[in-house]
């Protein structure tokens, strides 16, 4: 196998040349003949009764083709929610309707009221300003706890309250956990906020709808992480278009981070309007619209208690969270604070009793859903912060306290319904102490002090559940979809291979790393393998990319399909060499008969499959193409240990990240260069959450942080170079590649690392600060230092 193109090689990405030369094909680069443009009129109030929408002036404006309002969608389905959570009393969650265009009320700033389709983008925008909506203002609910008070204004009039669900997990443990906490030798308690974030993929969302009267087929080009999911949700639940008459294409997509998983109103609108007008209809979000319409992330308010015995062993954890759903249930919103959060509350530790309570709340804000990590960062943040606080209260070393409580024997059944298959948390911690240069900390601290700066070090462990997910399990937990993945491996006559995968790449480099896997299995150069994705017309039904699932689930499907191809190719090779199939070996692209010098090349066999002149036609069909669907047996459990050193300027409260080290156990690694890049990006997003980013609504529900002038995105000079390592590898035991997934780790592990480091710096500087809520802006840090 050529060292530079198989599994384990840091192959350069084949995607790069098109992106580096401006020849990528993003959705906004697609322009269809006869294309019209839509501009959405969005609510500028957070809560109000929509009594009328006067579109007459807009309709008379130049270039306007039609103005749509909620009335046009009265007979059309609403946007569906893909996950039903059952509450602690056995009742289903409250599930409100989510119309494509507002019907009777507006429920957040940015809620679409009307849509103008015109010949040009400017004409559509100009005409939207001439629409006159009559909105009777209603008091808005923004704060979650206020939203649950008796008599609070209701976001949805037809629901009992603003409580979506009150979830308990594991409910049977509720009393036992309470008792363990009451009788513990020590209990550490912490209240904290996991700040609301906006994913902010650099490419704003875009949708282009098209319709052919000749074939009756609709096509949607959209910036999605999972085009098949959009086809299913939009076709079956919103517009009533069967899959064979609906094609969804997600070409090059400029980042997702979760925000492009969900089915959005604009996608349904463009598909609907293209048919209604018999014209392609295009929408390109402005960044301001992205802030007002992309599902946002996090926004948990939590109280966590950690109980320890007299020997500092963890005995129980109880956590109570209010989770903001926003104004509507986005596609997977209910699953994030529940099954993606509660099941990770054991972390890397042996804690026999755990109880998680989550109240999900409707407010007059933009819907909240999965954002890189989705539930797992929220679990990790509270657990790792409370452990750090406990170590300080007990006067023990925070690393020693963690090591003492690590899970060390696998498989390990947690008390929160998941079973870790493999891991070695001491190994990643050992590696961390090495690459983070713990020995040099004292000297660096002295240097900082000499400059008048406070230096602190924070450490953190994390575990996450990736490779989402076993369909039968998630079905029991309320998922309304399966979470397998698919692949077709099409071998061409002259030996080149085209793989159609249901996974979607929007920055992850699948075209490179997936090709490495297939090439490695056959022993050919990766240049002979092409990866296609993103078009429902030529890829098998797949579930797309999120939850660090692509290589673990999509890669496994591809391996299964390639195994079928190889098995068939061996039959052909056996026929060609007049040997027994059992004696055929495949190595370096050559089929040979064991114990002989007979061999045929890969290309000879593939040619025979398509030119079957000398072929076992009575045993097998011609051709060489196989499809596999892979449904994982378990989640995968990447884990690791992170360390951060910060300098805090006591005069200003400004925090500077001086060093950051990450050791991750991702199991086997296909392309180390790509894996490191995924970690870097996750770290930057987590550091952004810890220090910079915050989504701020005022009391009336106005989004104050709706541009890059107000929402502090991490920039190059906010970041250090990172030291990352993924040499500690305990392969996953239940997928064929032994891989675990690496996309979200950095964003999960880094926020508590940073906060732990800042608290450490302040404590070492003599300030009795035990917690500061993120983002740790200079103002917040300075105020905390003033007591």
């Amino acid at each position, binding site marked *: 196998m050529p060292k530079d193109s198989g599994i384990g090689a840091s192959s350069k990405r084949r995607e790069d040349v098109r992106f580096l030369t401006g020849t990528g094909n993003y959705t906004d680069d697609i322009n269809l003949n006869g294309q019209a443009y839509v501009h959405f009129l969005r609510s500028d109030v957070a809560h109000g009764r929509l009594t009328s929408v006067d579109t007459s002036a807009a309709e008379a404006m130049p270039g306007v083709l039609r103005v749509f309002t909620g009335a046009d969608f009265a007979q059309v389905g609403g946007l569906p929610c893909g996950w039903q959570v059952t509450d602690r009393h056995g009742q289903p969650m409250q599930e409100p309707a989510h119309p494509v265009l507002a019907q009777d009320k507006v429920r957040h700033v940015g809620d679409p009221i009307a849509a103008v389709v015109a010949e040009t983008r400017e004409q559509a925008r100009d005409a939207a300003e001439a629409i006159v909506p009559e909105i009777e203002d209603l008091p808005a609910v923004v704060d979650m706890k206020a939203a649950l008070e008796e008599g609070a204004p209701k976001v949805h009039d037809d629901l009992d309250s603003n409580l979506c669900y009150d979830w308990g997990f594991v409910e049977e443990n509720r009393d036992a956990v309470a008792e363990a906490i009451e009788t513990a030798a020590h209990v550490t308690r912490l209240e904290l906020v996991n700040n609301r974030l906006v994913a902010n993929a650099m*490419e704003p969302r875009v949708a282009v709808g098209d319709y052919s009267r000749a074939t009756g087929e609709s096509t949607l080009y959209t910036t999605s992480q999972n085009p098949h999911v959009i086809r299913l949700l939009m076709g079956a639940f919103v517009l009533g278009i069967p899959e064979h008459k609906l094609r969804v294409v997600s070409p090059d997509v400029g980042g997702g981070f979760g925000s492009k998983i969900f089915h959005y109103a604009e996608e349904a609108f463009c598909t609907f309007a293209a048919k209604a007008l018999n014209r392609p209809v295009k929408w390109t979000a402005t960044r301001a619209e992205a802030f007002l319409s992309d599902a946002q992330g996090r926004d948990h308010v939590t109280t966590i208690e950690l109980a320890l015995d007299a020997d500092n062993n963890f005995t129980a954890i109880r956590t109570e969270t209010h989770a903001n759903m926003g104004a509507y249930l986005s596609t997977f919103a209910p699953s994030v604070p529940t099954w993606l959060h509660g099941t990770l509350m054991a972390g890397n530790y042996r804690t026999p009793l755990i109880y998680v309570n989550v109240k999900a709340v409707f407010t007059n804000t933009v819907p909240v859903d999965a954002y890189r990590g989705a539930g797992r960062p929220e679990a990790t943040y509270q657990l790792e912060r409370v452990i750090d606080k406990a170590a300080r209260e007990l006067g023990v070393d925070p690393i020693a306290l963690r090591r003492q409580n690590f899970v060390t024997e696998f498989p390990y059944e947690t008390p929160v319904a998941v079973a870790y298959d493999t891991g070695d948390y001491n190994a990643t911690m050992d590696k961390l102490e090495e690459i983070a240069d713990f020995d040099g900390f004292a000297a660096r601290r002295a240097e900082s002090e000499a400059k008048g700066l406070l230096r602190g070090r924070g450490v953190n462990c994390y575990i996450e559940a990736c490779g989402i997910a076993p369909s039968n399990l998630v079905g029991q937990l309320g998922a309304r979809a399966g979470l397998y993945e698919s692949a077709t491996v099409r071998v061409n006559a002259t030996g080149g291979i085209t793989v159609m995968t249901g996974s979607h790449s929007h920055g992850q480099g699948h075209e490179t790393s997936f090709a490495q896997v297939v090439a490695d299995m056959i022993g050919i150069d990766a240049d002979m393998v092409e990866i296609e994705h993103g078009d429902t017309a030529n890829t098998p039904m797949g579930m797309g990319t999120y939850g660090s699932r692509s290589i673990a689930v999509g890669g496994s499907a591809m391996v299964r399909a390639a195994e079928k191809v190889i098995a068939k190719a061996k039959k052909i090779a056996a026929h060609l060499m007049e040997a027994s199939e059992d004696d055929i070996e495949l190595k370096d692209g050559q089929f040979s008969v064991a114990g002989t010098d007979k061999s045929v090349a890969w290309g000879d066999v593939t040619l025979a499959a398509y030119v079957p002149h000398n072929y076992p036609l009575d045993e097998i069909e011609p051709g060489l193409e196989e499809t596999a669907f892979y449904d994982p047996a378990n989640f995968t459990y990447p884990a690791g240990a992170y360390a951060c050193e910060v300098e805090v300027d006591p005069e200003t409260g400004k925090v500077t990240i001086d060093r950051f080290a990450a050791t991750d156990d991702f199991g086997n690694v296909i392309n180390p260069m790509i894996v490191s890049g995924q970690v870097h990006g996750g770290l930057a997003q987590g550091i952004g959450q810890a220090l910079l980013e915050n989504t701020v609504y005022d009391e009336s529900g106005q989004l104050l942080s709706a541009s890059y002038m107000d929402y502090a995105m991490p920039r190059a000079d906010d970041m250090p170079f*990172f030291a990352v390592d993924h040499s500690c590898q305990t392969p996953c035991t239940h997928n064929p590649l032994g891989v675990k997934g690496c996309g979200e780790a950095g964003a999960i592990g880094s926020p508590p690392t940073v906060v732990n480091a800042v608290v450490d710096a302040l404590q070492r500087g003599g300030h009795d600060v035990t917690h500061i809520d993120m983002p740790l802006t200079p103002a917040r840090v300075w105020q905390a230092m003033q007591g």
Partner: protein
Amino acid sequence: MPQVSMTVNGKPASGEVEGRTLLVEFLRENLGLTGTHVGCDTSQCGACVVHVDGQDVKACTMFAAEAEGAEVTTIEGLAEADGTLHPLQQAFQDHHGLQCGFCTPGMVMTGVALLDRNPTPSEAEIRDYLEGNICRCTGYHNIVKAIMAASGQDVSKIAAE
């Protein structure tokens, strides 16, 4: 509507534009040069950086009419005619300085402008110069590394792949 004429990537280009048409809209919509991207509406993200008369400019901050008679270079004009990448484009590939690719054209055009002005910038100078370019994928690690490498500096000591 007024007519504008300029030289784009060495070739004459002209078209009718509204007074409010931005240079980036003219490049993308009129000329079909879709390599220049729009990532925000407040001139913060830098996805639209092009060179106008040798100066790096956010093409969303300039009207098309203001570029009358100018020499404009976009990401499409950076590589050699035979497809050989510019050294900074090659360094971005060699050092994995891009993931989703959306900010990449602006990053590369900004990086080229920096290296024109400062052939061997320090890490701090690079990070400072990239202040107006946002990347959400890479954490900037490999972008900074790629620019250092393209300037001939030894990056082998910088951690990780």
